[in-house]
């Protein structure tokens, strides 16, 4: 732990991320104003002592909305990462441990899923079942699967050439045991770093999807949805656009700095890896 915090960027990134996360968690039990509280006479207020960040077009408290939106953004991105890891990592490990046709299949499958950017999946799902936050989670989660599958496979393959894996096979371990005992523990750091990257990409994607109406729907709120609500008004009331946008930018920067720091702290060699840096 001490070693991790020897890297200042990691400490800064992690602390900033945790602060945003804490703000999101707090919104579950307390916000300055209830986010559903519509108060038309008080709309379009600038920052006041009562409403620190002003109010929106329905008179809702912007600070409360940002807090709740932050939570939604984290939640969507985190569940999508869990989906991606939960499916992708076993696939990648299986590809590395079994090789042959299994590997071929996993690679083709991940190539195939790469052809479906989150937007396309979201379009298809929304057409079928209508809009909602689960669509965004599903769309982003599906896109995360091949990302984690590739990272897991790549990392596991370089571990698999090491002699201790052969020693494990000599000791009679089967492929699943090899993957569990020898491969997975040695690629955890890679997965954690990729997890942070996918978190930040997930937050950006959620914002994009909610903004075009394919993600979170009212009465829930998310940072992307706030931008959608402000769409028609941003030329007159720019604050309604600037505040949630800035919140997204700051959260993503915090996550990225934490991710870069983790990468440097855990293993300098990872920098030569091939992290997926695309949205």
């Amino acid at each position, binding site marked *: 732990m001490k070693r991790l915090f020897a890297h200042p960027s990691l400490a800064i990134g992690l602390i900033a991320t945790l602060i945003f996360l804490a703000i999101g968690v707090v919104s579950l039990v307390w916000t300055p104003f209830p986010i559903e509280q519509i108060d038309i006479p008080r709309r379009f207020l600038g920052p006041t002592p009562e409403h620190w960040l002003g109010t929106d077009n329905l008179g809702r408290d912007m600070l409360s909305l940002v807090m709740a939106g932050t939570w939604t953004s984290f939640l969507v991105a985190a569940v999508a990462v869990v989906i991606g890891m939960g499916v992708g990592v076993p696939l990648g490990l299986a590809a590395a441990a079994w090789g042959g046709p299994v590997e071929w299949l996993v690679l*083709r499958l991940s*190539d195939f899923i790469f052809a479906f950017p989150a937007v396309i999946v979201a379009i298809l799902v929304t057409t079928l079942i209508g809009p909602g936050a689960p669509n965004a989670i599903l769309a982003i989660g599906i896109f995360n699967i091949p990302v984690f599958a590739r990272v897991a496979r790549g990392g596991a393959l370089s571990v698999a050439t090491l002699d201790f894996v052969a020693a494990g096979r000599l000791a009679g371990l089967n492929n699943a045991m090899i993957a569990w005992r020898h491969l997975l523990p040695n690629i955890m750091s890679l997965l954690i770093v990729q997890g942070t990257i996918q978190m930040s990409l997930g937050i950006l994607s959620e*914002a994009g999807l909610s*903004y*075009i109406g394919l993600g979170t729907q009212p009465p829930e709120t998310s940072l992307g949805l706030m*931008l959608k609500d402000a769409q028609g008004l941003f*030329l007159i009331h720019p604050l309604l656009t600037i505040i949630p946008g800035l919140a997204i*930018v700051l959260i993503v920067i915090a996550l990225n700095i934490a991710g870069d720091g983790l990468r440097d702290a855990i293993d300098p060699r990872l*920098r030569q890896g091939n992290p997926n840096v695309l*949205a």
Partner: protein
Amino acid sequence: MILFALRRFLGFAVTLLVAALVIFWLLDLLPGDPAQFILGINATPESVARLRLQMGLDTPAPERFIAWIWGMLGGDFGMSYTQRAPVGELIWGRLGVTLPLAIFAMVISVAVGLPLGILAARRRGKALDTAVMVVAQTGIAIPNFWFGMLLTLLFAVVLRWLPPGGFTPWHENPGLAFRGLILPSLALALPQASILARVMRTALVDVTSQDYIRTARAKGLTMGEAVWRHGVRNALLPVLTILGLQFAYLVAGTIIVENVFYLPGLGKLIYTAILERDLILVRGATIILILAVTATMLVTDIAYALVDPRLRERSAS
């Protein structure tokens, strides 16, 4: 090399076919009766029956799938029920906005991102490097559509240099059409340029510590000359992979950014189609998007092999 390209092309065709199958399954089979789905619960049985006939839903699913694929090969994407127009024509009209937008954004991000990345790598550890990396770190974190809103605020409202949105068709006034795409392509390009700058810098810094750079210096080149003559081409290899993916996601990204600028592109068309449950139109539009993504990846693969003799041989021999 030809075998390599052929093999990649085969993979591309198979991917497309499987994607078509998935889309067909999702949009034609999953909703049960697509005609009922399109018209909603309140439709009369007669109108549903009429639409079923019109969509050819009475033939078995495999036949419908083959007919759909066969039609697309001949450029026929079916008829949009809501717009009462051929889907192919509708999409083609919108691509006139979406494609140029994606291409402009790509050109801008390459023209800005690569030189900045090279500059940062050459000045590694200096103030310029730090500045570029801070800007890039921020650029990656900015949602492109939000950046689009900020650009509109600045250039259209405060400075009044450019239109805030809307689009004049190319055939009416190419100059105005171009002006309408400047802000959207800038918005799209910012995150991509930031990513490119970072990838380029990392790749170049990695290359700098390679043994062949030391060899080149031993021949009598300075560090700068060695990196320029031997490093940049090697560093471009990872950048090329990223470029391919980027273009693919730019095409998808246009859908979101179009919204900010009220551009009549593919995104708008799809959005309306979703609201009106026009399955035929959604089906055609998604397959076109997937075609764009996979075709870009195919081109990237082949370009990569053209640059790197190792890859060319490994996969062709």
